[in-house]
């Protein structure tokens, strides 16, 4: 792991966006995967398949990063008619680990950019 962050990374945060089928919308893919797990002998209840987007964003603060990623979700990453999204921020970037847990452990929700690297 790099001991000191490159200056260019100072304003970079890593966002993990989880996009899920909206509640109540038929999710045949989730049902098929659930049924397959049951065939393998796993006792599973409801199961849904969504999508994960990882994106490094340049931002001045966590709030700034979050509002930028929310804009991305509304405008492209998710279709609000059929999907919901959940944004998690962590310090570091995908190209410059660490994607370390935030001090204090879970959740990654309110990562402090000061602790990046």
């Amino acid at each position, binding site marked *: 792991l790099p001991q000191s962050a490159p200056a260019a990374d100072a304003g970079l945060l890593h966002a993990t966006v989880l996009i899920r089928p909206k509640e109540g*919308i*038929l999710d*045949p*893919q989730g049902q*098929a995967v659930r049924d397959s797990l049951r065939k393998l002998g796993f006792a599973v209840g409801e199961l849904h398949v969504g999508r994960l987007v990882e994106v490094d964003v340049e931002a001045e603060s966590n709030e700034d990063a979050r509002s930028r990623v929310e804009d991305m979700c509304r405008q*492209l*990453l998710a*279709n609000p*008619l*059929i999907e919901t999204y959940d944004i998690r921020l962590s310090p570091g970037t995908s190209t410059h680990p660490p994607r370390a847990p935030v001090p204090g452990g879970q959740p990654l929700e309110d990562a402090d950019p000061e602790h990046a690297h």
Partner: protein
Amino acid sequence: MGVKIAIPVFPGSNDERDAAWALRALGADAVLVWHAERALPRATAAVVLPGGFSYGDYLRAGALARFAPVLDAVRAFAADGGPVLGICNGFQILCEAGLLPGALLPNSSLSFVCRDVALRVERAAAPFTARSRPGDVLRIPVKHGDGRFHADPELLEALEQREQIVLRYAPGENPNGSASDVAAVVNEAGNVMGLMPHPEHAVDPLLGSGDGALILASVVDAAGRGCAPGAAA
């Protein structure tokens, strides 16, 4: 030469030639337009967005095509009242671009469906279904994996009230789990329509059905009457 109908072609489109062939058979001057073009050809009187898998269906089917330069031109053409028909992937693109209500999800069966389906005409009006009458049954093939039309109950009710549902799958024929059997919808203004079935594959009875010609010929009629922007009587 007949009226000019533009067919935008995206990387991954694959029905543009059939659409052009069908429109030409119906007397139109169909012109393929590459997605990087910023303008539609001069005198374009209608636009047909073809089927296929634009941009590899990345993210969601149809989600990326709205960033193509040609889509800005299509959007402006539609805003001016020009007739725009989206077939299959074209329907998905129009929904993702916000030009049509609703969304298209993976088929409830999870299977790609490829077969003829019977469709009931709910709304017979220019520019898309003027050659039909309400209650007519058309037989037109579908071939898609993501054709399940979704709209929440409020939106469905509004679409029904405003007569924006143009075609429905006939009873027992719904191939993809679409809400309320919806196969085709128009925008509020009535000049933009999307449908999952492929009328361009059903213009020659030799190939099973000529019913698709009723839809495409309606578009050609409308284009010839000058529904196009700037060409209003």
